[in-house]
């Protein structure tokens, strides 16, 4: 087995007390002091994540659009906002790359930077596989695919204090934050790019700043040149300290994303039919819900699929969880499926049948929020929201409720102005 990889921030993590674990091919921080505090910081203040293990792919050429439009589940002509506008310069969109059998290779954000110039962000260790896939699908076309794995630094700042923190470190924060809706980006990590002047830190470091993330909370993903990563990280940490910004590890990232109903690739989506799941927006369905607005790789298999499993979101009654790898799902005593993810969102609790977040403006006074287990199950057939099923892992059995959402009052889509 080859040696595990380190991001440019590995030494910083070690020096700052991180508990390091193996994650894919990488050695990554799982938490620093307390995963619980890190989770709560992102909901209430802000957290900083090293996501340099994720892979960036540059896709360019006259036919880049057509190849991506064929390979990606989103319709690039109709995917932005409520009005389903086309993907234009500076916009990004979440979707999935499927194989011809309609099974997920990986999920991704696809950025349009300019005509014929795209950036594709995929999961750790997936840069090579997705880049090969795109190159294969684009054979004979005018398209170049460059896997930038380990060539860049990537840092996510997430949580309501992200905006005030970034306002302190950016050269022209008002201009950067102006017209920067959820799923849009400005700037470029490459100093040679004409876009690089759009977003710079005070010391002149150019970054690609994307208003997106993997926590459900407002914030940004920043891409920079690899050798700038530590300096960008330390600059942001120092600026955010007064607002309660703390470094966060993979455990908090996992519990935050589950509470935001976001899938983990290769765990909640993977080598099975990408249909009947909580993310129908990632497929380019017709408004009627029948059929797709375009043909794409895997769409035929999805249309012809019969008896595909259903992936559903659940929320527990309290913070107790089961071991997802070992657990099975039971309905009225009958085993009906498996557990994909089961973690605890530490920022939520139940009160009189409703779920509140620690950040809910209408949270009853004195309500003690201890957390609720949540995640995804894969079962044979559909179940209505509100249905109670039991998850059993051999050690314990917990009742959980099928849900359409988990952590309420998330901040990701709120106007940036409201955080200044």
């Amino acid at each position, binding site marked *: 087995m080859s040696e595990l990889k380190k991001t440019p921030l590995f030494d910083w993590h070690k020096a700052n007390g991180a508990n390091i674990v193996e994650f894919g091919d990488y050695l990554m921080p*799982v938490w620093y002091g307390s995963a*619980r*505090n890190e989770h709560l910081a992102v909901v209430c203040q802000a957290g900083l994540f090293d996501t340099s293990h994720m892979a960036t792919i540059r896709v360019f050429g006259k036919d880049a659009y057509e190849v991506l439009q064929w390979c990606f589940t989103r319709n690039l002509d109709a995917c932005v906002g409520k009005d389903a506008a086309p993907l234009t310069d500076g916009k990004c969109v979440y979707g999935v790359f499927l194989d011809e059998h309609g099974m997920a290779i990986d999920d991704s954000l696809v950025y349009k930077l300019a005509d014929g110039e795209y950036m594709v962000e995929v999961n750790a260790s997936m840069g090579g596989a997705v880049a090969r896939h795109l190159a294969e699908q684009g054979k004979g076309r005018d398209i170049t695919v460059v896997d930038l794995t380990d060539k860049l630094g990537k840092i996510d700042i997430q949580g309501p204090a992200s905006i005030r923190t970034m306002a302190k470190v950016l050269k022209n924060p008002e201009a950067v934050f102006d017209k920067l809706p959820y799923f849009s980006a400005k700037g470029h990590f490459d100093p040679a790019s004409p876009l690089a002047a759009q977003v710079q830190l005070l010391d002149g470091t150019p970054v690609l700043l994307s208003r997106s993330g993997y926590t459900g909370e407002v914030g940004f993903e920043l891409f920079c040149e690899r050798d700038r990563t530590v300096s960008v990280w330390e600059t942001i940490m120092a600026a955010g300290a007064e607002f309660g910004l703390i470094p966060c590890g993979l*455990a908090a990232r996992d519990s935050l994303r589950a509470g935001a109903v976001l899938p983990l690739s290769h765990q909640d989506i993977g080598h099975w039919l990408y249909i009947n799941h909580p993310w129908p927006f990632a497929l380019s369905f017709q408004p009627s819900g029948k059929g797709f607005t375009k043909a794409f790789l895997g769409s035929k298999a999805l249309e012809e699929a019969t008896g595909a499993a259903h992936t559903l979101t659940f929320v527990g009654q309290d*913070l107790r*969880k089961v071991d997802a790898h070992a657990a099975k799902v039971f309905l009225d005593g009958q085993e009906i499926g498996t557990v994909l993810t089961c973690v*605890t969102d530490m920022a939520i609790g139940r009160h009189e049948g409703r779920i509140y977040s620690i950040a809910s403006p209408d949270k009853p006074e004195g309500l003690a929020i201890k957390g609720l287990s949540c995640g995804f199950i894969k079962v044979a057939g559909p179940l209505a929201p509100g249905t109670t099923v039991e998850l059993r*892992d051999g050690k314990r059995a917990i009742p959980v409720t099928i849900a359409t959402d988990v952590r309420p009052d998330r901040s990701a889509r709120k106007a940036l102005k409201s955080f200044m």
Partner: protein
Amino acid sequence: MYPSDVKYTKNHEYLKPLGDGTALVGITHYAQEALGDVVFVDMPETGAAFGAGDEFGTVESVKTVSEIFIPSACEVLETNQELEAHPEYVNEDPYGKGWMLKVKLTGDMNPELLDAAAYEALVSAESH
């Protein structure tokens, strides 16, 4: 980290004799650090009797749910009710406020329990 008035199991529980035939039972500093934030401790009923090595409950952290085992034969006199509201005591003060059970020792002390030096050698080998 590993007080000398405490005896340890290879599974990272401890037994702290109080000198009157009773003892406190909990998990070690090494265990709490490996588990991460403890969020819930599932404990037995008062009066329950256990043999050495019996499972007496589970400790749930952000990472996992782990069984916890009795260091030496005993009967449960009391469980730490504070842990229900403050499971973080297990992280903050595992041998003090984070105790789990107060027990009456029954029978001979389990001869396989380790002293502090032997336990420290064990955990330094585990964490290379």
